[in-house]
């Protein structure tokens, strides 16, 4: 089931949340809407779901214009950031809810509903939790139950709003890998909202980078990382250095920098301001004359042994093979 967003605008009072958004999501794709908070990504997701009405523009599911359809007729699965599980119902009743709400004629029998719920609990690997209440579950378990509940009605598309946002770092990583695997099995057209570029890179087939209500770039994780369309995208997808040179500012990533203890052609001089080990990597911050912003360098484990990064030490650095001349600010 493909999703098309055509020229969607949305305004909340004076605030323009979305400006002329056009987006085509192919059937079976897993797409991330990535951007800082307030960029409009959640509004866009809620408009696709029908929870919010756009001021203008259309939403099309597989060629069918659903703009006028009510939420309940769009048949989308939606997973909320804070799960929105029904607190007074057991896990079983939560998952069964969508099936039980169907009109009498389409409603499966109780036995069929129970089978379906068991199947979904198996899918999210939480069979033993059927009789618990939501508050007795951990965050990760709640999120998986919320997913099972959304899948119970066999939605045409799956929308997830910051699905891992409220979880701690370790569970978040496990769960996003699990989601990526699940998507490979189920192959349901899915859109998820995130502000975490690692999450988008790791899980999504394509990333839609958004900022201030517009789409900055759409592409595969490799594409957007290798060829950021704007300085915003460059900065948002990873740590970035900005170096003022005679030919104008240069942008490059910390891991691209080469260091030397001796002056060499193409190398600039900097003073070590800080050196910190982060896991297996070493992050050195250099102070460069003529600019306030320091230059960050990340080095592999072998650099740890060599030493020579004491505070105040003089080092020579090269911006690497592929520095980018800074984007013209629009």
């Amino acid at each position, binding site marked *: 089931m493909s999703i098309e967003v055509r020229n969607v605008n949305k305004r909340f009072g004076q605030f323009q949340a979305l400006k002329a958004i056009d987006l085509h999501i192919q059937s079976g794709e897993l797409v991330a809407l990535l951007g800082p908070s307030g960029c409009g990504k959640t509004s866009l997701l809620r408009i696709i*779901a029908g*929870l919010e009405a756009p001021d203008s523009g259309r939403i099309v599911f597989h060629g069918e214009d659903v703009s006028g359809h*009510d*939420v*309940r007729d769009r*048949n*989308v*699965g*939606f997973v*909320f950031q*804070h799960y*929105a*599980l*029904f*607190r*007074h119902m057991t896990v079983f009743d939560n998952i069964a*809810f*969508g099936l039980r*709400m*169907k009109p009498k004629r389409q409603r499966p029998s109780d036995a069929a509903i129970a089978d379906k719920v068991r199947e979904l609990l198996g899918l999210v690997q939480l069979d033993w939790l059927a009789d618990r*209440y939501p*508050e007795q579950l951990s965050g990760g378990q709640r999120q998986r139950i919320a997913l099972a*509940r*959304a899948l*119970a*009605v066999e939605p045409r598309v799956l929308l997830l709003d910051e699905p891992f946002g409220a979880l701690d770092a370790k569970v978040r990583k496990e769960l996003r890998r699990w989601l990526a695997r699940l998507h490979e099995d189920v192959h349901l057209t899915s859109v998820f909202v995130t502000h975490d570029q690692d999450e988008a890179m790791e899980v999504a087939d394509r990333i839609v980078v958004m900022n201030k209500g517009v789409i900055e770039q759409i592409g595969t994780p490799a594409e957007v990382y290798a060829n950021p369309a704007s300085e915003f995208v460059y900065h948002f997808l990873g740590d970035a250095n900005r170096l003022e040179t005679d030919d104008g500012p240069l942008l490059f990533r910390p891991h691209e920098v080469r260091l030397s203890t001796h002056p060499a052609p193409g190398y600039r001089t900097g003073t070590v301001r800080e050196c910190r080990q982060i896991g297996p990597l070493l992050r050195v911050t250099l102070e460069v004359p003529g600019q306030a912003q320091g230059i960050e360098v990340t080095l592999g484990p072998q650099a740890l042994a060599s030493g020579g990064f004491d505070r105040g030490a003089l080092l020579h650095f090269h911006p690497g093979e592929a520095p980018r001349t800074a984007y013209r600010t629009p």
Partner: protein
Amino acid sequence: MSSVSLPATASASAKAARRGNALGRRLLILAAWLVFALFLLLPLVIVVSEALKQGVGTFFTAILEPDALAALKLTLLAVGLSVPLNLVFGVAAAWCVSKYEFRGKSLLVTLIDLPFSVSPVIAGLIYVLLFGAQGYFGEWLSDRDIQIVFAVPGIVLATLFVTVPFVARELIPLMQEQGSTEEEAARLLGASGWQMFRHITLPNIRWGLVYGVVLCTARAMGEFGAVSVVSGHIRGLTNTLPLHVEILYNEYNHVAAFSVASLLLALALVILLLKQWSESRLAHLRTGAQP
């Protein structure tokens, strides 16, 4: 650290402070009990003892007398009509305020509280002014032979007015706190508006609702001022229990007055127990434990 002896001094003074606190605490608790006994318990004891002064027989004669029974019936009728109406109104108002954004919302919330701030007597006078024989709609009503003031509809209206805020006031903060994502989730899963209300909203607010209804019932039963103005005090017809007590008292029929008052008191105690129970369920709900 500047001084080694500091912790010792600190703990000594903390102990002294604790001793002072303990004394203060005892005094305060004593004072609270004293006030409670003097101003709340003593009057209740007096009411019951006055009622039983001439024995249980007189007590029952007083409350089983036709006028008293009529007053009881009318009180229950006023409660039975005004509470359900306020229940519906309260839920609708709380729903509007907590789920939608609209112009004049804060004005609406303020207006819901109006009956709290307006004296009940004035509320009663408003109805006399509107529906009385000389009132705005008086002629229109009398042409159609409809009697509102000095009749049962007036009493119900006055009761309705003074009890409007109870259910809404209780539900608005509860529903605002719960937000509407669960309702959204239900809609997304295909629930109709009614199904969503029935299966998601109602279970989430039920204890707040019970609490609001209990408070509303207590007030509706005991309302004197507004009802007194619109009632006309016709014995056996437009007297509610509180009005009946007043009439008996004014006639120096103290035993009967206190007997009927005891009846009202007994009803109030039942309501109080219900309130206590719903309150504990509500606290349960708020701390997140399951029923």
